[in-house]
């Protein structure tokens, strides 16, 4: 019995201790006036981490009226610089951020961005600061699909300012960037294919350190993902022109925000921008484009032939494998074209051609075998018919013999 009483006392003490620990949260009086903020705050990442109003705003949580604001530590930042510094007071603190695995250099990075430069060097209060992209009370984790900074929401978040004609006019910036991006192949991959690794605004421009890449840096930015193409481009005659600032690496041919899936048609549009009066260079273009187009068409034709044979019931395992090999060659060719070097393109094109011809020849053999099998049916059917006739004749003969 005494042992049971001891357990009851222990439990009571434990509950009291919990109540005392939780007391500050229970005593928060801010919500009496700030119901709207409360609704936004509850699902936020900060609420999940156990932060309260006072962690950002200070004030007196025991006061039940406006005197709650009348403390020395009350903070309600009235300018964007103060907002950035307030956020950084926690997000720049390694000890505080370590448990969450978050970086602590956001403010430093922000100061290197165009946004940060405008704010900290020119006190421009119209530029984006932490809360403009992440929200205020409703900040969600980046991984949350509802977060303003989730990959599929990034274009809309950036577009709130960069699509605002009045605001952008002051900075002489275009306002159709987001519209262009949404028509791009990158956006197609993000929104239609659900590939969250495909680039959005921040992939190329950075997030906290958001800065438009310089003319010479665009290639580096593209090269972060398109590594092979950039390596090959460096071997092309255009590389020298790019180093001299005469040619904007990837952008000159592919464009930037509205980038489309590259195809042979690009040659017709892009090369003439610089080489319209240069027939020698246009001949190189025609050779390279022709080589790739032929390889692509031959491969495409082989795919159709093999598919048709498979649908007819022919065993095309080996031909499928050859198609895969042809596809590898054609895809390599598409990357290799960045060198514009016929001596590198030609062997791959020849190999692709050989594989495609081998595929078609093999399918032809399969079709030949199928044809022979069909033809072989005719003598079999004739034989069977003759046999049937013989049986019938024999039966008649036997019937006649049996007649008395």
């Amino acid at each position, binding site marked *: 019995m005494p042992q049971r009483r001891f357990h009851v006392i222990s439990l009571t003490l434990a509950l009291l201790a919990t109540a005392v620990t939780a007391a500050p949260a229970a005593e928060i009086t801010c919500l009496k006036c700030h119901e709207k903020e409360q609704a936004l705050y509850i699902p936020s990442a900060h609420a999940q981490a156990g932060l309260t109003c006072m962690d950002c705003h200070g004030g007196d949580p025991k006061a039940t009226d406006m005197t709650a604001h009348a403390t020395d530590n009350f903070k309600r930042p009235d300018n964007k610089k103060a907002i950035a510094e307030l956020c950084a007071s926690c997000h720049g603190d390694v000890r505080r951020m370590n448990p969450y695995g978050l970086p602590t250099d956001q403010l430093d990075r922000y100061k290197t961005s165009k946004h940060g430069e405008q704010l900290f060097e020119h006190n421009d209060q119209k530029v984006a600061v932490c809360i403009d992209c992440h929200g205020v009370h409703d900040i969600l984790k980046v991984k949350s699909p509802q977060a303003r900074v989730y990959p599929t929401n990034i274009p809309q978040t950036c577009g709130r300012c960069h699509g605002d004609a009045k605001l952008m006019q002051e900075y002489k910036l275009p306002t159709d960037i987001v519209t262009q991006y949404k028509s791009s192949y990158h956006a197609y991959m993000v929104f239609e294919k659900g590939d969250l690794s495909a680039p959005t605004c921040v992939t190329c421009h950075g997030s906290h350190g958001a800065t438009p890449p310089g003319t010479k840096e665009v290639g580096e930015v593209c090269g972060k993902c398109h590594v*092979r193409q950039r390596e090959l481009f460096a071997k092309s005659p255009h590389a020298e022109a790019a180093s001299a600032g005469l040619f904007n690496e990837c952008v000159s041919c592919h464009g930037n925000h509205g980038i489309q899936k590259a195809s042979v048609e690009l040659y017709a549009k892009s090369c003439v921008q610089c080489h319209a009066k240069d027939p020698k260079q246009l001949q190189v273009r025609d050779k390279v484009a022709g080589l790739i187009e032929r390889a692509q068409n031959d491969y495409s034709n082989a795919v159709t032939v093999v598919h048709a044979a498979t649908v007819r*019931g022919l065993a095309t395992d080996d*031909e499928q494998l050859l198609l895969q090999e042809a596809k590898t060659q054609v*895809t390599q060719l598409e990357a290799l074209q960045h060198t514009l070097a016929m001596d590198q393109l030609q062997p791959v094109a020849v190999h692709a051609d050989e594989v495609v011809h081998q595929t078609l020849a093999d399918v032809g053999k399969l079709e030949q075998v199928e044809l022979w099998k069909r033809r072989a049916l005719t003598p079999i059917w004739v034989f069977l018919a003759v046999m*049937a006739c013989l049986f019938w004749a024999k039966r008649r003969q036997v019937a006649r013999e049996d007649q008395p």
Partner: protein
Amino acid sequence: MKDGQKISRRSFLDWLLGGGLILWGAGFLAPVLSYVWPAQSRGPSVQTVSAGKADEFAEWQTKIVAIGGHPVIVVRTPQGFRAFSAICTHLGCIVGWDASRHQIACPCHAGFFDINGRPVAGPPPQPLAEHGVAVVNGEVLVKSA
């Protein structure tokens, strides 16, 4: 029929004719059925393929074998044999082996996969699918999935 024991000539020919007709019908039907029955619904004819003798593989040596029309890369690691789909998860090129990095490499866009099939560099978004490998009586057998 005499004494109900011997089969008459007429009856014998009737039986023969009947049997002949059945064979005749079967001769017509068999090729028709073989065409109607779709070959692809039978699935790949081979479920496991041999990649060769185990002792023919040096350490880190690789070989590409075909299973049901799909290339599979077989690697001998110090811990044993591993096999992965040899189709790059980026744009479907056939991958190869980079001996200097000990990684599976895609020749098209410089994608690299580690020895567990995980993408470690370049654009491939997904790991390579792994195939089961068994060494039976000194022969390396790769399973289709």
